[in-house]
């Protein structure tokens, strides 16, 4: 991982240079990995156009009907709105926590720094089910002790998702900070900028790729999360992954495939737009 200080971008190999066998092997391995990752996506996309209700091979024809069903399903629309709201809110709150946390961890030497650093990684390591259950138990305790019921509330859901978002952000912002040349900050101060101005005008632009990438990954982690949400959603207020799961319990027509494809497209578009502003490949 490199930060914004890296200025040169790896351009394609110069033409006229013969690739050595090692290079070919590397390219072949990359291709295999790529196909491995893409295959399920290709199949689900194919399936989403099957005309028959019970998916079976070979397809009897093709239709756009399932997309119509997916978009027309009020449950899915409501769940999508909830997921988007939770994702955006959790990302914003996460940013408020992660930015100062990353700065502190990257730049201050304090007792317990290593512990805090690892603690912030925890949500990435602990299984979502465990985390979800733990938060659930905690909210029950809070409800009993303080009579403040966040159980199955929107606030409780967002709270849980912040935990999913923060580790991604902290990792990526810290990676950016590690590659950030601090003499730039000294240069700004020497030129007359106080600490705040220096942060705004020099540090922020320098670590922006990390902030944007962290927000992006955090949002995607929140948007796609199933296990944690299972414990935290309320009646009549489900997230999209849960709505998909519920639908699957009584029907397995290609509507699910269609909604999955739509979800993939939305995330891919978001990634592409982000990449136009900051080169994600530089940070992750």
């Amino acid at each position, binding site marked *: 991982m490199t930060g*914004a*200080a890296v*200025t*040169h971008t790896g351009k394609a190999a110069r033409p006229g240079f013969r690739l050595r066998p090692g290079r070919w092997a590397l390219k072949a391995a990359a291709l295999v990995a790529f196909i491995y990752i893409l295959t399920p996506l290709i199949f689900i996309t194919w399936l989403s156009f099957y005309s028959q209700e019970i998916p079976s091979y070979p397809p009897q024809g093709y239709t756009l009907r399932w997309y119509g069903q997916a978009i027309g399903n009020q449950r899915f629309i409501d769940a999508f709105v909830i997921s988007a709201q939770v994702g955006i809110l959790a990302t914003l709150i996460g940013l408020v926590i992660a930015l100062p946390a990353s700065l502190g961890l990257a730049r201050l030497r304090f007792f317990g720094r290593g512990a805090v650093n690892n603690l912030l990684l925890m949500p990435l390591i602990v299984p979502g089910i465990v985390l979800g259950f733990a938060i659930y138990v905690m909210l029950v305790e809070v409800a009993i002790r303080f009579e403040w019921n966040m159980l199955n509330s929107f606030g409780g859901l967002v709270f849980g998702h912040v935990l999913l978002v923060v580790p991604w952000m902290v990792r990526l912002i810290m990676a950016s900070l590690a590659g950030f*040349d601090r*003499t*730039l900050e*000294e*240069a*700004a*101060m*020497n*030129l*007359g*900028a*106080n600490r705040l*101005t220096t942060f705004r*005008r*020099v540090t922020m*632009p*320098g670590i922006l790729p990390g902030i944007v990438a962290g927000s992006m990954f955090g949002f995607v982690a929140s948007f796609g999360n199933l296990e944690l949400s299972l414990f935290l959603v309320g009646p009549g207020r489900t997230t999209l992954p849960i709505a998909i799961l519920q639908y699957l319990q009584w029907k397995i027509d290609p509507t699910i495939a269609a909604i999955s494809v739509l979800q993939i497209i939305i995330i891919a578009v978001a990634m592409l737009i982000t990449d136009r502003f900051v080169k994600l490949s530089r940070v992750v």
Partner: protein
Amino acid sequence: MARLELDRLSKRYGDFHAARDVSLDVAEGEFLVLLGPSGCGKTTTLRMIAGFVEPTAGTVKIGGRDVTTLPPWKRNTGLVFQNYALFPHLTVGQNVAFGLEMRKVAKAEADAKVLDALKLVQLDHLIDRLPRQLSGGQQQRVALARALAFRPDVLLLDEPLSNLDAKLRHDVRVEIRSLQQRLGITTVMVTHDQEEALTMADRLVVMRDGAVRQIGSQKDLYERPADHFVADFVGRSSFLSGTMAGDAEMKTAGGLTVRCAKSLSGPAVMALRPERVYVGREPISGQDNTFPGEVEFVSYLGSLIDIHVRLSPQDRVIAQVPNHDSAALPAVGDTVHVGWAATPAVFPADSDMRA
């Protein structure tokens, strides 16, 4: 443009003195160079002036104002970093404008000043480039323009030329110096390159282990080094060590009695500049000291020749002679005579210097 005064400025890291009692008085428009071996505290001193290192004792005054406790952004110094530290996300023009912007200079006026500053370093045609689209030498000049654009009271340069190739280094050296003189800006430069220091400075400061060893002009340092270290560090010398024996006379370790132009007592070291040592087939007349010796080594430098002559098992001097006639040069093993005038470059033996 202002006078810069450091008064017994010190910086301690735990028990370690990075700078101790550094006192300097830099006149308005003067170009002062801090010279010394690696780790002697040059950067530390410069950074205390700029406000990035908080001194443990002493004061910094710029233009008569005590700035010791002011943060960097209130000091009005222009610092050129060794790695230039140009803002990568801003164009050349925006980089140079940064200091003016911080001082809330009106846009039109700032634009004019940016252009002026870039013209000074002959880079006005690259105003819209990004730093990464510039060569090292161009980046260096942009950094200089950025530090000058807002007319700082003091210009600070930390090894500004060390990332340039040899040829460019020579050109930029002259460029910086003439620019500094034209603007009459008080300047402190740090370097460990002796030649750079000698060619650019009005006055030099030789530092060692955090302390100032000598302050003076090129001639002062060369002709009258203050101690063994300075004599060794500035220019080339060969050394004779021994003990003072009576008034202005030293008895060397090898038993020679050498006359010098300074009185002191106890163990002492004498520094001899190679070009001030004469070599001949006969005893050298008209010199205060003349001794026979055996040629131990001849180093052919082209226009000049180094001749190492052993006077006794413990004493050796180096003479540098012009290459007038290579056939007449002594060969290794020849017996020759060397002579030199009584020199004031005699110092008490320095415990932390090898003889």
